[in-house]
């Protein structure tokens, strides 16, 4: 456990503690420092964390949380491994795959539905994914290739994989027949490049049984063992952060834009607004959804598909893997 | 009243038509004046077109005859018929003036 380090004198500290005890009766007065690394660049995908930070939800839980932005050069799981961050966000499939080499556990599942999709142009005439046989398809690296590969294997078709970067330029120039994208991001990017919704023919993984829940908070098993309260607190504050963000979208966008500008990432409000709205769709697909909960049936489904597709040799047990909130 | 004047040799043939009454008699006087100015000495007046003549008309003729006489000319009448002939007879004008039955006869006379 990290000590709260302050530069003031011992006497002042004692005084503050006594005063604090008298004035603010309550548990856990000391702020615990922690860090979380997000698995991509700042954008509305992480609005819940930003809101929780800006609104002081982490602080209220007694956490002085540092949010570390991710990016193309940063592997969130690696940072966890080497201790650069206490917590990390990543996909469920990533977490499951990583588990075999690194003891990570999920302390909160936020994105319940997969936002991954394959996008084609309407005038390419792709009516079903089978039409992609022998065509060039842009596929992302890492965990993003799991769902597409599994799908094509299932369909029994072979495609020409064109590794995709973060750019959609090749697709825009008709260099690939289909491109990978996230519903909350790339799809709207295409719209923001002038393509109308009628000109796009998307295929959602959400509509298949390859509908993998995605973003969740992970930490090393030993962190979870040592600081269960911290874990719970992080998740709780993040949940509150997301709820607040959905209720106050303009504030959430302000918060996101501020961070993006600081990191010199190209940002515009229209795109972030779309992203925030879609995040709401996939974090709270129904009115009655409880944010932050990983359902066992989702876990088991994803595990079995990963094993079936040969990505996973052995799936962990649910309680081993998940220590987040329960319904 | 209308006057149709044509020269025939040294005689002037005047065909009178219309009514000669107190109102139109002055036209006859004017015509007579013009004959005298033109030094006509022999004027044959054809009254075949004259429908009616009153005492004023008769007076006009008398006055004209007197003037012509004074200018060494003479008036000859022809073409009398109907009422006009009767009036000429009754008033004794037929006896006073040279009356012929036709223009040719008057010219010859």
């Amino acid at each position: 456990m990290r000590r709260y380090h302050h530069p003031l004198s011992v006497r002042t500290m004692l005084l503050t503690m006594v005063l604090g005890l008298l004035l603010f009766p309550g548990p856990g007065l000391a702020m615990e420092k922690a860090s979380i690394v997000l698995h991509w660049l700042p954008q509305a995908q992480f609005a819940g964390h930003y809101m929780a930070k800006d609104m002081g939800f982490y602080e209220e839980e007694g956490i002085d949380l540092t949010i570390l932005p991710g990016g193309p050069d940063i592997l969130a799981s690696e940072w966890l491994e080497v201790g650069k961050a206490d917590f990390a966000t990543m996909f469920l499939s990533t977490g499951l795959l990583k588990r075999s080499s690194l003891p990570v556990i999920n302390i909160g599942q936020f994105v319940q539905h997969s936002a991954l999709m394959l996008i084609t142009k309407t005038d390419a005439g792709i009516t079903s994914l089978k039409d992609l046989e022998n065509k060039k398809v842009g596929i992302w690296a890492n965990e993003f290739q799991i769902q597409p590969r599994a799908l094509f294997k299932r369909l029994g078709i072979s495609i020409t994989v064109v590794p995709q970067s973060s750019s959609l330029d090749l697709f825009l120039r008709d260099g690939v027949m289909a491109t990978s994208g996230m519903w909350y991001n790339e799809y709207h990017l295409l719209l923001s490049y002038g393509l109308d919704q009628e000109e796009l023919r998307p295929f959602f993984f959400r509509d298949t049984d390859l509908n993998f829940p995605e973003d969740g908070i992970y930490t090393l098993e030993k962190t979870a063992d040592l600081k269960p309260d911290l874990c719970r607190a992080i998740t709780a504050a993040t949940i509150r952060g997301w709820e607040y963000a959905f209720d106050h979208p303009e504030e959430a966008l302000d918060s996101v834009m501020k961070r993006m500008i600081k990191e010199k990432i190209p940002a515009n409000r229209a795109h972030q607004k779309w992203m925030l709205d879609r995040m709401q769709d996939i974090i709270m697909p129904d009115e009655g959804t409880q944010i932050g909960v990983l359902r066992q049936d989702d876990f088991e489904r994803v595990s079995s598909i990963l094993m079936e597709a040969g990505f996973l040799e052995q799936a962990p047990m649910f309680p081993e893997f998940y220590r987040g909130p329960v319904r | 009243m209308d006057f149709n004047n044509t020269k025939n040799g040294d005689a002037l043939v005047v065909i009178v038509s219309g009514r000669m009454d107190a109102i139109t008699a002055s036209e006859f006087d004017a015509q007579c004046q013009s004959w005298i100015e033109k030094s006509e000495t022999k004027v044959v007046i054809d009254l075949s077109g004259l429908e009616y003549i009153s005492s004023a008309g008769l007076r006009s003729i008398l006055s004209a005859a007197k003037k012509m006489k004074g200018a060494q000319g003479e008036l000859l009448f022809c073409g009398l018929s109907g009422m006009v002939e009767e009036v000429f007879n009754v008033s004794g004008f037929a006896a006073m003036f040279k009356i012929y039955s036709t223009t040719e006869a008057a010219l010859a006379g």
Partner: protein
Amino acid sequence: MSKRHGIAFKLAAFILSCAFVILVVIVGYNYNYSRDIILRQAEESSRNLARDTTGRIDSVLITVQKVADNIAFSLEDATLSKEEILELNKRVLANNPEIYGMAIAFEPYFLEHDQLFFAPYYYRSGGRIAFNMLGGPNYRYFYMDWYQIPKELERPVWTEPYNDEGGGDVLMATYSVPFFRTVDGKKVFAGVVTADVSLDWLEDMLEEIRIYDSGFAFLLSRHGTFIAHPDRNLIINQTIFTLAEELDSPELRSIGQKMLAGESAFVPVDNVFDDTERYLFYTGLKYGGWSLGVIFPKDEMLAEVRKLSKVTTLIGIAGFIVLAMLIIFIARKITNPLHKLSGAALEIASGNLDLKLPEINSRDEVGDLANSFGVMRTSLKDYIENLTSTTAAKERIESELRIARDIQMGILPKLFPAFPERPEFDVFASIEPAKEVGGDLYDFFFVDDDHFCFLIGDVSGKGVPAAFFMAVTKTLLKVVSEKGLDPGDIITKVNSDLAAENESCMFVTLFLAIMNINTGETRYANAGHNPPVYMPCGGKPEWIPPLGEPVAGVMEGMEYTTKTMTMHPGDVMFIYTDGVSEAMNPENELYSDERLMDILTAMDKPFAPELVKEIDDSIKVFTRGAEQSDDITMLAMQFCGKCDK
């Protein structure tokens, strides 16, 4: 019923409405035409501007393209060694100052079978040329746009502009050209040549573009991203479509799509960016796939035109007011004298002809009217005076005529029965002059105890001259008759007196008879008079034949004959003037001798007084009130009382 409006009002209303319409038309047309001119000029100048700007940008891009294309071409020579390649790269960069950096990136393991990456990169830094070998686990360039796109498309491309943090946050664009080598007889993709161009001069170039005060130019990338715009926040952050989404403007989205499609147009964009009205000219660049947009603020463009229109309108309105005042003034100038004249006219009409006319001396139609008015009044006055004196004269003459008539009628025997104590005969006469005085005459008197004379006469013409002649004739006849001569001789003497000194050529027809009242023997003479009617009692009336002797008063020395006939008791001699037979009805038909004869013939027991009355009545019935053309005189002489047969 229309309201009465003064001339001033009518003039003003009409002229001002016309002037208003003209003003509106002029200002409106002027505004529209000027606006069109300005718009056309703006469009023209925007085309020129765009052409100039795109030309300049294109010239930079084409230069870079050519260089990279040439390098790519020369790299197809497989004999080049690594060192030669490096040297080429460096030299070319050095020689082309517009290029910021150049890389020559090879396919994995292409040059060296153990070297995954081979991508030398020379770039400018701090005035020198720096070197970097690209490629590594963190820089897997095979999947980057600048490598992947030309590889997949097999043609050169300009990548989307980006902010190069390494180069000091400068906006850059990269031109990548694929090059190929022949391996085993087949053409194979070998790698990519890239040339980086910094775009900071773009900002400056576009900023130089001054369009009025608030106009500006912007540049879009191939996919619509802002790469130049006065609002720096938009650059790279936004595409024209995200901006349209933020502004909730489907119009802007559609314009963006057209721009990306390479179209060119000059369109109004009202209330798109904000609530001002603007015009946008857009066109595409030749290289790079970029689009240029130029914004014109409508307000500023049309400010001059609007000002012009405002000023014109103000001038118009001022002119209007002046015109109105002028019209009213002139109209007043016209209507005031007219008013005065009108008042004077009413005064004069009420009888005041001596009214002093208003002084109106203007040299125009109104002055003419005033003059004419004065002339009219004077001549009216004269006319009335004339008329008054003429009327007075006429009345005097008329009264004299009435007296004359009385005198004339007075000299004729009028008392009937004339000789009630003499049963031997009945005589009855009537006379009706056509005018106040007439030219007809009749008379009857005893020449001696046994002989009764009765006569009738008709002087040529009617009226006063005839009346004079009539009076003279009647007097002469009376005087001469009293000498006891025969009728013929009487007329001979009277004729000779009348014919002497008869300058006026007046003549009188006469019928004179002297009857022996004991025997009924009647001597008579006829000087040109229409034949009387002899009505024997119990027999048929017949004409008493004329003697063919001329009218009296014309031929001096004419001797008249006397004829004799005998009247038996009851016989009537009816003598009359041609006023009877020539009495006309409104259809100008004559009463005629025939009708007279018919009536006389129809009489059963003629009795002189009744007979005359009867004829008189029948004449009146016939003429039906038509104007009397000649004097009507009748005399009936009946011998020895009534005819009882």
